[in-house]
C-alpha cells in the first residue's frame, strides 16, 4: 500500500508540475529580439522620415511661401516682432523666427574659404532702391536648423527628445547640401531665383545668411 501511494505520488508529481508549468506559461508569450525591441520602444516617438518630409512637403512649402527678400528684410529692419508675425514662423520662443524669402538677383561674390560656403547675391531692386545683399549658404556646412524650424508641419512634440529632433534637423540639412551640390552650382554673375530660409532672433545685424531650398 505504501508502495502504491509512493508510486502514485511519483506519477502524479511530474504531471502536476507539468500541468502547473503549462498553466503558468499559458499567460506568457515568447518574443523575438525584434519584438522585444518594439515592445521596449512602445510609446516612444521616432518622428517622421526626413527625406519624405523634405521632398514631399518642405520643398513645395518653401516654393509656395517664400516672400520677396527685399520686402521681408525691409520689414525686419523696422521691427522684428511685427515682421515675425507678418512674414515669419516660429514654433515658440525657444526658436528663432524663420522667414521664407525669395532671393532674385545676381551673384556678386563666392566665398569658399570656409566650409560654410557662401554665395553673395545682390537683389534685383526697383530703380532707386538701396542695394540689398543676401548670403546663400552653399555648404558643405550649413549653419542652423532653419529649414526644419521654418516648416510648420514639424514640431518638437513629434519627437520624444531633443536628440531625435536634432538628428532630424541634421538629416534635413544633409538633404539641402546634397540638393545644392547637385544642382545649384553658382558662379559670379549668375542670375538666381531661389527660395531660402533666413532665421534670426532679432533685427538683422551683419550678413543676412539664408539657406537655399528650391530654385528655378
Amino acid at each position: 500500500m505504501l508502495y502504491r501511494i509512493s508510486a502514485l505520488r511519483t506519477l502524479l508529481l511530474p504531471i502536476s508540475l507539468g500541468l502547473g508549468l503549462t498553466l503558468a506559461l499559458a499567460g506568457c508569450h515568447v518574443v523575438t529580439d525584434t519584438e522585444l525591441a518594439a515592445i521596449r520602444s512602445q510609446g516612444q516617438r521616432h518622428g517622421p522620415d526626413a527625406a519624405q518630409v523634405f521632398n514631399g512637403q518642405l520643398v513645395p512649402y518653401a516654393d509656395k511661401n517664400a516672400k520677396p527678400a527685399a520686402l521681408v528684410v525691409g520689414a525686419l529692419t523696422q521691427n522684428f516682432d511685427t515682421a515675425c508675425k507678418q512674414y515669419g514662423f516660429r514654433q515658440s520662443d525657444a526658436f528663432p523666427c524663420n522667414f521664407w524669402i525669395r532671393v532674385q538677383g545676381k551673384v556678386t561674390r563666392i566665398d569658399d574659404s570656409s566650409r560654410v560656403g557662401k554665395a553673395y547675391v545682390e537683389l534685383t531692386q526697383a530703380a532707386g532702391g538701396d542695394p540689398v545683399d543676401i548670403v546663400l549658404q552653399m555648404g558643405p556646412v550649413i549653419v542652423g536648423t532653419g529649414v526644419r524650424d521654418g516648416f510648420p508641419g514639424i514640431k518638437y512634440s513629434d519627437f520624444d527628445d531633443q536628440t531625435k529632433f536634432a538628428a532630424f534637423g541634421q538629416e534635413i540639412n544633409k538633404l539641402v547640401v546634397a540638393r545644392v551640390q547637385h544642382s545649384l552650382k553658382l558662379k559670379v554673375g549668375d542670375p538666381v531665383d531661389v527660395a531660402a530660409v533666413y532665421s534670426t532672433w532679432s533685427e538683422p545685424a551683419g550678413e543676412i545668411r539664408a539657406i537655399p531650398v528650391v530654385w528655378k
Partner: protein
Amino acid sequence: MWKKLALSAAVAASVSMVMPLNAQAAGKGTIAILVNALDNPYYAAEAKGADTEAKKLGYDTIVLSHGEDVNKQNELVNLVIGKGVKGIVLDNADSNSSVATVRTAKDKKVPVVLINREIPKDGLAIAQLSHNNLQAGTEVAQRFVETIGEKGEYVELTCNLADKNCVTRSQAFHQVLDQYPDLKMVARQDAKGALLPGKQAMDSILQEHPNVKGVIAGNGPVALGAIASLESAGHKDVVVMGIDGSNDERDSILAGKLKATVMLQAQSIAIHGVDLLDKYIATGKTGEQERQLFRGILITKANASKVNDFYYTK
C-alpha cells in the same frame, strides 16, 4: 531599518533647514519646489524664480533640495504630498528613475511640473519644460569654430555624462565641430560639472597637448576651471567657451577671459512652470503642450551685462 531611519532624519533635517512646512497656511495653498542643490547658483536661480512667482500668485511655498539623490527625492515628494501641497515644481534627480516618482504624485492627484530635466514618459507630468540644450550647444560650438578657426587642436571637457543634459550638449558640440575635419579634438574628459575637476582635467591635458587653441566645456564651472588652469600655465590665448550663464561666467566674459557662454533661462523656466501649475490648479488643464523648450541665449562681451542670476534683461 536603520537606513530608513537615517534617511528620514536626513529628509527632516533638509526640510527644517530650508523652510518650515506649512502646506495648509495660505489662501491658495502651498506649492512645493524641489531642485537639486540650493548652494548651486543655477538651481538657486530656479528656486528663486519659482518661489517669487508662486508667492506673487498667492501661494505659500516649500523649497527643498534632493541633492540629485533619487531616494531622497522620493521621500521629499511623498512628504510634501502628505502635507497636502497643491502641486510640485520639480527639477528631478534622474530622468529615468523619476518616472515612478512623478507617477506616484499623479496617482495621488498632485500635479507635477518638471523643469530643466524631462522624463521619458508623456502624460504623467502636466508639463515638462526644458532648456533647448541642442540649440545652446550648437550655437556656442558655432561661435567656437568661428573664433578659433576651422583648423587646429581643441579639447572638450564634458560636464557630467551621467546627466542627460550634459550628453545632449556634447552631442550638440559635435554636430557642429565634427563637420570640420581639420579641427582635431585631442582630448575629451568628463569634469563632473565642477570647477576643481575642470581645472585638474585641464592641468593634465595641457601637459600632453600644450598647443590647443580652444576648450569647449559642457557647463560654466568646468569652463571656469579650465580658465584657471590655463592662466596658471601661462596659456592666456586659448579660447574657452561654455554653457550655463552664471554671474561668475558673466564676470569672466566681461574681464575678457571666458569668450562666450550660453545663458540658460533658469528663472524664466521656473516662472513659467509655476504659471502652468497655477492654471492647472484653477482649471484642470494647462492649455499648453506638455513638452516645451526654452532657448539658451548666446552671451559674449557685447551683451554680458544683461545677465543677472540666470535672468536676461531685454
